[in-house]
């Protein structure tokens, strides 16, 4: 019983990284209509930038996170402004192909700049502790992650439901033409939304640096899980992405514990089942 | 006069809105019928229900006595029902000739044939060439359909619709979005096809010239229901119909 509770907490912290990745992915799809295959790469870049600022250059941890968000935001801006923009109203196949091309580019780019070896930087001092959960040591940092993830969920919710920018974004998502007709600058808005989504992914990657391996290919591994989450929750649905992340995170934690051999299979099976029965996802409509 | 298609209390609703409500209608074979009415009257929805593009929420549809209410469009085509679309629906990357050839092959049940070449399908090829001639597109035979002019695409659209040699053919605003010269051409073609083929044409139209010059029977719809139906002269003098069109010249 205690093991299950403990593992659940582990799953919860894993889920938060997934939530940050899936949130950006689903927002970009919901508003721009683009499924960004390379979103995991933005997560990876966030990790690499944070590692560089914090791990290599000794910048203050929080500042490093902020700088890494900014850096990936710029990357996202460039990606959208000069490349993605050209394929908006086209077959999804071309969007998948184009963004797949970016996965290849980013994967090699990080090898070129940072070398192919995996990195693990030091834990920031104030987090370097564990807390006793059901008699076992649980890293404080993971609690911080859980808190951060929940905070982001609240902030994002407020942003989209309560602010003027959020209202514009939602209007553009549901009817692009109408939004353009009432004066919303759609191209600029789209660039902003994409950059925002990129920064969310980067935040996930950046926050993971003290505890997770920073290596080429971590993005590609996570993007599949992010796809699964957005399918379960419903493409474009933020609440769904949060719930989906919780499901996938805890399931993979329990899966590793209880069915180690078939854990991976199970997750894909769930995605397949959801796609077959209710392709719009649990919250989609 | 034999009945060809009949509906009983047909209904289609989108939320609270009734696109088509309680429509009981009998269409007769060989009677060129027009369906008219103001925008939003439910004309296209009715065609979509009859051709299988949409499934009704209520009611029944019978074709030559057989119930077809929930059959998909491909099955209805095989029974002899076909349609053209208001928003152009051709096969843009295929050539004009191939656009006509496909429905013919489908009718002749040759579509699964995997190893014989297209040109060896003599019967289908011959028929397709004939239809191509009927719709005046012989010269454009090898052009990709997507590159045709708008007017020629409309002719092709008609060609595809009649290529399955249907017994009943629904034309949804066949002259939609065309300039006066193109309109006349389409009108001529519809007239020609109606005269030469054993197909019953049911046409949705806004252009009253086309409606009154071609129709043997007119059905007037309003707000999803049938307002009136009858011979052109009856409809022309029908008070309610005139009011709906607010004194428009009909």
């Amino acid at each position, binding site marked *: 019983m205690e093991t299950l509770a403990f593992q659940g907490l582990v799953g919860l912290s894993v889920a938060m990284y997934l939530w940050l990745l899936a949130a950006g992915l689903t927002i970009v799809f919901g508003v721009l209509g683009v499924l960004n295959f390379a979103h995991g790469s933005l997560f990876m870049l966030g990790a690499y930038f944070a590692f560089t600022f914090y791990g290599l250059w000794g910048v203050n941890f929080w500042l490093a996170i902020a700088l890494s968000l900014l850096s990936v935001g710029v990357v996202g801006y460039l990606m959208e402004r000069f490349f993605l923009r050209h394929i908006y109203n086209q077959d999804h196949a071309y969007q998948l192909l184009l963004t797949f091309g970016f996965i290849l580019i980013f994967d090699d780019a990080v090898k070129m700049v940072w070398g192919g070896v995996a990195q693990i930087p030091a834990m920031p001092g104030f987090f370097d502790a564990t807390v006793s959960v059901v008699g076992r040591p649980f890293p404080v940092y993971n609690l911080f992650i859980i808190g951060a993830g929940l905070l982001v969920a609240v902030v994002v919710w407020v942003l989209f439901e309560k602010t003027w920018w959020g209202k514009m974004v939602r209007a553009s998502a549901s009817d692009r033409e109408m939004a353009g007709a009432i004066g919303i600058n759609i191209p600029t808005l789209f660039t902003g939304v994409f950059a925002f989504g990129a920064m969310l992914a980067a935040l996930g990657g950046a926050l993971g640096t003290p505890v997770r391996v920073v290596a080429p290919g971590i993005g590609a591994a996570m993007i599949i899980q992010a796809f699964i989450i957005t399918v379960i929750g419903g493409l474009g649905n933020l609440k769904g992405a949060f719930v989906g992340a919780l499901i996938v995170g805890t399931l993979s934690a329990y899966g590793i514990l209880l069915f180690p051999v078939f854990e991976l299979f199970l997750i894909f099976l769930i995605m397949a089942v959801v796609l077959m029965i209710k392709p719009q996802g649990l919250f989609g409509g | 006069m034999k009945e060809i298609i009949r509906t009983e209390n047909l209904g289609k609703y989108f939320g609270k809105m009734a696109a088509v409500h309680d429509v009981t209608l009998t269409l007769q074979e060989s009677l060129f019928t027009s369906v008219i009415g103001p925008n939003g009257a439910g004309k296209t929805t009715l065609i979509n229900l009859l051709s299988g593009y949409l499934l009704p929420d209520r009611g029944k549809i019978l074709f030559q006595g057989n119930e077809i209410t929930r059959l998909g469009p491909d099955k209805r085509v095989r029974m002899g029902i076909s349609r053209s679309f208001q928003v152009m629906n051709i096969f843009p990357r295929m050539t004009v000739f191939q656009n006509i050839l*496909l429905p013919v092959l489908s009718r002749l049940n040759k579509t699964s044939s*995997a190893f014989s070449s297209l040109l060896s399908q003599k019967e289908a090829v011959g028929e397709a060439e004939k239809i191509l001639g009927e719709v005046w597109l012989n010269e454009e035979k090898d052009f990709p359909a997507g590159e045709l002019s708008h007017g020629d695409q409309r002719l092709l659209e008609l060609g595809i619709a009649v290529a399955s040699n249907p017994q009943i053919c629904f034309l949804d605003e066949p002259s939609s979005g065309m300039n006066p010269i193109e309109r006349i051409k389409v009108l001529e073609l519809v007239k020609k096809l109606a005269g030469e083929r054993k197909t019953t044409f049911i046409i949705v139209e806004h252009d009253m010239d086309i409606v009154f010059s071609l129709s043997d029977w007119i059905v007037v719809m309003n707000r999803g229901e049938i307002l009136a139906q009858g011979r052109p002269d009856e409809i022309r003098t029908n008070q309610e119909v005139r009011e709906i069109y607010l004194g428009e010249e009909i």
Partner: protein
Amino acid sequence: MKTRLAVLFLVIFLAVLPAVAGKYLVYVTIHILLLSIFSLGFNLLFGYTGLLSFGQAGFYAVGAYGCAKILLAYPSLLAGILGGVALAGAVSLLLGILCIRHTRIYFSMLTLSFGMMIFSLAWKWRDMTGGDDGLVGIPRAPLEIPGLFKINMNAMENYYYVVLGLSLLAIYLFHRIVRSPLGLTLQGVRDSETRAACVGVSVRKYRLLSFTIAGLYAGLAGSLLPPLERTVTPPVAHWSFSAEPVLATLLGGIYSFSGPIVGSALFYLLKDIIVRFTEYWLICLGIIVVVLVLGFRGGVVSIFLKEGSRR
């Protein structure tokens, strides 16, 4: 006429290749042929039917592992290949029934998930697939029909001719299919599924047909791998491997018959050239993909020949 001459020349060239080229080139050519078969099947689904599958590696793997298991138990090349192909066909038919109900994004994601399910089985099901290490010691079994003939396959040249023969057969069959009424019907489904239905075509049935044929081709390509390498490992089922026929087809040209074949050759050529200058060949490939998607949908074939950019 020109095309026929070119094809003839190419076939002759391929036929004499082992006599004039070194072992390495023969080995690479076999791989190019495998990728060509794999890509042709993929493109039937994508270029001709309009469905982008990111899970074709799953069927390739079924063919590969199936053939390997058969060869380990009963060393007959024919049995291995036929068995692998049949198994891949059966699996693609079953999965196809599930996938075909959906289109576009959902179809692509569904194929991705099924492909990865097969990958996870290949990776974790040690008892069946050897897990991480895969299957090893697979014999390059002789080509034999008991009682009629038996040709030893130890020399790579011999195996090359088997692969070449089967590839040419597969390409020829593919040529017949896409020029046939079936081929036209698939294109109709691609161009407008609504219209296709309204001319009497059962869209679902033809998509399933296309999916199954693509699976058979993937399975054939996969079956030809184990006798060559003598091992089969899980990466052949991974979605990144599914990307190879996608890239090859994109390179060569989605809308042409020869695109996948040209693209497969180019893929290996590029890899070979780029790797001599830099180890970063993925970034070059990625840049090429971006350029192609943004500017040259018809791929290389459309740039150099007139055939590619339309049909």
